[in-house]
């Protein structure tokens, strides 16, 4: 039963991520991305990582994608082009070659079959607590660095999107 669910979620993730990059219309892309995220959340549930699954849905599906959709609607992008990209067959060809290569590589590796079965995450103390402890103990430094990355990104986005002050605009107009 679990295996069946796993294969469903995994297959749906792959198919919808292919659609995400294959569609021409940005709105379709976003919707396909939404389906990808939802199915990945399903995979997390199967691994007993309920907290991450919930975060995945709340943050990615709930916040990020809705923002994307809003922006797309505000921009009102029109595309009259075909349903899929023109190079889709090239992409399919190379994609299949690479996938087959990776699969052959993986199945020939001595590690296959030797991998320990993943232990369901820390059932004793609960998901949330386990993540909190890991974040602030073992992964303290990466956690702080992520904070810096986000701060830098926010400041950068503001700088790049800031309006040019009126006075300066007048000066540059004169120069031109």
């Amino acid at each position, binding site marked *: 039963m679990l295996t069946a669910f796993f294969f469903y979620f995994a297959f749906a993730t792959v198919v919808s991520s292919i659609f995400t990059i294959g569609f021409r219309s940005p709105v379709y892309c976003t919707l396909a991305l939404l389906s990808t995220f939802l199915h990945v959340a399903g995979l997390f549930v199967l691994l007993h990582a309920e907290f991450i699954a919930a975060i995945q849905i709340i943050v990615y599906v709930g916040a990020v994608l809705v923002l994307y959709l809003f922006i797309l609607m505000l921009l009102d992008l029109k595309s009259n082009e075909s349903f899929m990209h023109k190079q889709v067959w090239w992409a399919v060809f190379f994609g299949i070659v690479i996938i087959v290569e990776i699969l052959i*590589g*993986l199945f020939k*590796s001595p590690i296959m079959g030797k991998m320990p079965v993943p232990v369901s995450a820390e059932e004793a103390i609960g998901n949330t607590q386990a993540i909190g402890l890991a974040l602030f103990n073992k992964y303290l430094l990466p956690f702080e*660095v992520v904070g810096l*990355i986000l*701060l830098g990104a926010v*400041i950068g986005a503001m*700088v790049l999107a800031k309006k040019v002050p009126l006075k300066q605009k007048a000066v540059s107009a004169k120069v031109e």
Partner: protein
Amino acid sequence: MDPILPDIQLIAILPEIILALLACGLFVAESFIQREKKEQLGYYAIGALALTLLSTIPLWGKEISTFSGMVVLDSYALFFKTALILISAIIILMSFEYVKIERINLGEYYGVILFATVGMMLMPSANDLLSFYLSLELMSMSLYVLVAFMRKDPKSVESGIKYFLTGVLASGIILYGIAFLYGTSGTTNLGEISVFIKTQEIGSSPSLIMAFILMITGFGFKIAAVPFHMWAPDVYEGAPTPVTAFLSSGSKVAAFSVMLRVFINSFDLNSGSWWQILWIIAVMTMTLGNLVALTQTKLKRMLAYSSIAHAGYLLMGLIAASQIGYAGIMIYLVGYAFMTLGAFTVIVLLCRKNHRGDQISDLAGVARTNPFVGLTFILFALSLIGIPPTAGFVGKLFLFNAAIQGGFYWLAIIGVLNSTVSLYYYFRVVRVMYMDEPAEDLALSFSPGMKIALGFTAGMTLLLGLYPEPIIRAAIDSVKIFL
């Protein structure tokens, strides 16, 4: 249950903490300073870097591994941290005039440079795939912003988008490689990975090879090695010139420093046939970089291709996989950083109001009106080619020597031939500077900061060439951790 407090020694990342806090302070102070006085923030940033440099002094000679093995502090990391602080300071010095001329004198410019420096400084001491990846992202994220900083200039915005897209793709590929490495070994700690690979004797396992190929691809993007170099010329051309200098020196130094640790520590480069793929990449990088540079008419594009070629020389040290090769990479990286920064400083000098000055012809006759600038440029050109008595010669000597000792004769021969090719295009610029008639309105935008930057880079290029003993000793000392 009681939480177990981890054993954390904050002193291991003391310089980074100081710099990050001071950078945050800069962002706060930014809003209290008038637009005309923004250059005060540049001086503040220089001060912050000086303080950070001072804070590395008590760390010399220490060996610390902390944050559950996420970062290590050793002489190797400190070597690169010191170099990166100096690079960043030079970048800020050469920015003062430039940001005013291009009207991008916002305080955030200096703050984002400091953030990028924090990421770069964390990279050589990252001893875990996770901390290495995140510090790489911190550096790249800040650089994406800096490249697009002239947001009124379509070229800068275009190069920002290009750099962002290729950079994100490269990060994704590195991450995929990390996933394979983690899947194979079950740990992200570089030391444990190396132990696992050696004890399990799976050095030639296909999953490891896949991880290696993916990571070399991702790193190839970051250091602009052929065939992953496509982004470099466009981005180098469009970005603000000091940022271009930062890209070709700082980001390359940091990427190589982390590459050495990841590849030497986790993959066993001495055994197997890892070197074959690196050999092909190195030869292609050197040759294509030098040959295409011959035909460029724009200074920044020419230096972009020359910087691609230099990545090829540097890879030779990794192929040789010996103590002298790794030490050669370290020496060459530092020398290369100073000489390329110097060359970019000369380009920044050409930039005036309403005149970008990035064509080779803009340099016409500069050496006649400003003999000092001409002399320094000759020095940088000699060093970039690898002629004594300059830093470039010492670095190349080590790299070629390592290739020959490792038995890679053809690699060394191709390297030497390539250096000869590069002589032509560097000295074409020198010829233009000395032989051509100067333009009538020729004026260089000198400022105290520019003078210090030019003098310092020229001095270091010469000093490392004439008296290279301290840096050789430091480098050979540092690479002992890998052997």
